[in-house]
């Protein structure tokens, strides 16, 4: 373990009630979405579990427990900023205000989806909000550099946020990107979601340092680690990093010790996880809800209203997706190149 310690980032308790409510709302919306996808995903996989079956086929990586990271970071962004997310992208897409209907339609593989059914849940591309994600570990970092580079050249004050997990911090593309972003002072905020697990491999088995913020400093940029999956601490850390990037002072890295509440993918029984029974007790959403109730920012009625509104939006998106047509097999050759297929 590293002997270099970075100062822990903690919430300073300075957030306005409006910001605190909006962070809560975003986390609830995100969780409600994941619960709906979970329901739809498992609705028709049987008998038994056939991963390729059903309305939502294929691998499904859900983000329950990691909402504080996306909510806290994206609160500082506008849709002019870019976000490159991971194979577990839904919470960041939602927090970055990707259209919920078109995103859901893509997850259902329909023609009204963001990629007209070509991408799927790991490959969501939304030019309107400059959102994208990649199914390949750490490989969303390099394109984020280019988006930041373009914004800089175009004289915009937009920035790029690049997200990975802690497992990705051992990939070459991660280290190459940190060096180049710092060298060229690119307006990037690197986010590492440390959920303790690279599928089944714990961080202690994969990583030589205790804190990826150390790796940021090794590459000439500030790095901080947020413990406790605390949305307000993420918000504080992201505010500093986003301001720095917008001011032209270069990149920063924020590692957040977060929580993967569910399996790596749906169908993962997580037999490798000794702390599985305790996971629910660390759920960040009830915890934040208690904080806001105790501080009088929210009451039970407001919470019910927020949950109902989230549910309404999510069910609307699911209904939209289900009503959207399945792509015509005759169009399977389209979009390989920018002009339509000439086959």
């Amino acid at each position, binding site marked *: 373990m590293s002997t270099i310690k970075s100062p822990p980032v903690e919430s300073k308790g300075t957030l306005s009630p409006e910001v605190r409510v909006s962070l809560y709302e975003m986390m609830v919306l995100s969780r409600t979405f994941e619960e709906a996808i979970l329901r739809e995903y498992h609705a028709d996989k049987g008998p038994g579990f056939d991963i390729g079956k059903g309305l939502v086929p294929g691998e499904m990586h859900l983000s329950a427990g990691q909402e504080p990271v996306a909510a806290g970071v994206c609160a500082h962004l506008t849709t002019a900023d870019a976000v490159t997310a991971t194979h577990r992208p839904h919470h960041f897409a939602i927090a970055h205000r990707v259209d919920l209907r078109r995103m859901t339609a893509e997850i259902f593989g329909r023609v009204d989806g963001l990629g007209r059914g070509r991408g799927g849940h790991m490959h969501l591309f939304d030019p309107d909000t400059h959102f994208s994600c990649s199914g390949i570990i750490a490989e969303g970092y390099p394109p984020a550099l280019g988006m930041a580079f373009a914004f800089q050249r175009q004289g915009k004050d937009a920035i790029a946020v690049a997200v990975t997990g802690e497992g990705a911090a051992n990939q070459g593309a991660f280290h190459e990107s940190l060096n180049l972003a710092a*060298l060229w002072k690119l307006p990037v905020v690197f986010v590492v979601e440390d959920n303790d697990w690279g599928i089944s491999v714990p961080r202690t088995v994969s990583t030589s340092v205790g804190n990826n913020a150390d790796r940021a400093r090794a590459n000439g940029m500030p790095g901080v680690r947020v413990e406790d999956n605390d949305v307000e601490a993420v918000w504080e850390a992201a505010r500093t990093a986003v301001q720095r990037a917008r001011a032209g002072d270069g990149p920063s890295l924020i590692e957040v010790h977060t929580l993967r509440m569910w399996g790596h993918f749906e169908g993962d029984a997580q037999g490798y996880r000794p702390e599985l029974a305790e996971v629910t007790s660390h759920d960040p959403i009830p915890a934040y809800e208690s904080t806001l109730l105790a501080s009088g920012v929210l009451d039970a009625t407001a919470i019910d209203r927020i949950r109902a509104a989230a549910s309404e939006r999510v069910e609307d998106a699911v209904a939209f997706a289900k009503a959207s047509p399945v792509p015509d097999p005759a169009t399977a050759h389209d979009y390989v190149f*920018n002009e339509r297929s000439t086959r």
Partner: protein
Amino acid sequence: MTITEVRSERLTTSKAMVQAIDLEMERDERVIYLGEDVGMYGGIFSSTTGLLDKYGPSRVLDTPISESAFIGLAIGAATEGMRPIAELMFSDFMGVCLDQIYNHMAKIGFESGGNVKVPMVLTMAVGGGYSDGAQHSQCLWGTFAHLPGMKIVVPSNPYDAKGLMTAAIRDDNPVVYMFHKGVMGLPWMAKNPRSIADVPAEAYEVPIGTANLAREGTDVTVVTISLSVHHCLDVAEALAPQGISVEVIDLRSLVPLDRHAILQSVAKTGRLVVVDEDYLSFGMSGEVAATITDADPSLLKAPVVRVGNPDVPVPYAHALEYAILPRPDRIEAAIRMVVGA
């Protein structure tokens, strides 16, 4: 009397390539060039000579030896409205950055259902013949061409080098531009006279996906690409006085492949030799042969003969390397075999 003056100058392939980049950079400020040693050095194989002086370090960028990072940067910049050219110094180095190339550059357009464009050019030096060993002498265009979502162009001469580069920069899709070190006309490497030619001074495009009928003939079609075009033309010239009429098709692009040009020529000659400096199996030579057999095997009066690297890592020792490269002696023997002479 009207005199139409066509301005042109004699250029090496590398200078023609640079001229295309120069004209596009002048015309379009979104065009930038980035890679290793592309600034002061001007590209190890002279792909960027003089561009730094003219455009400065904000548009001609030397990068760290971090191919994933800077090729990925080019991809991201392209999705946000720039038109970057990124240089992978050798195609052999694809191993350190292939994910950005085939999973991102080539797939983003498709995965987004056509909503995101990646208008960029990925340049790279290819090929052997000068004892650079197994990790610096490969062509690998068959590997790139196998992976969907990127156009592949491989010029053999100055005219095409300029016209294909212009077309590649202006294309809204990712284009891989592969230049053989042996066609660049470098002063420090053996070169064929065809590496220097008259090139129009103004910008022009060679359409991507169109083959060039490099030499007309009637007895046998030789389909080839890159440096092998020079060897095939040399052999064709030598065989003409012996009564063997060789047609040479320079594919120039592998993706899209000009299958029509291949079929049209073989329909005329009835005989086909494919000459490819890349590995023989699962590659360009098989694809060209399949173009005939898929369409009409009865076009062939004789079996197709393929001349390629016989699936051997490129050896270092000169004698060994020249034993596996498609040199003129092997090309001539193949042509004689297929015409029965």
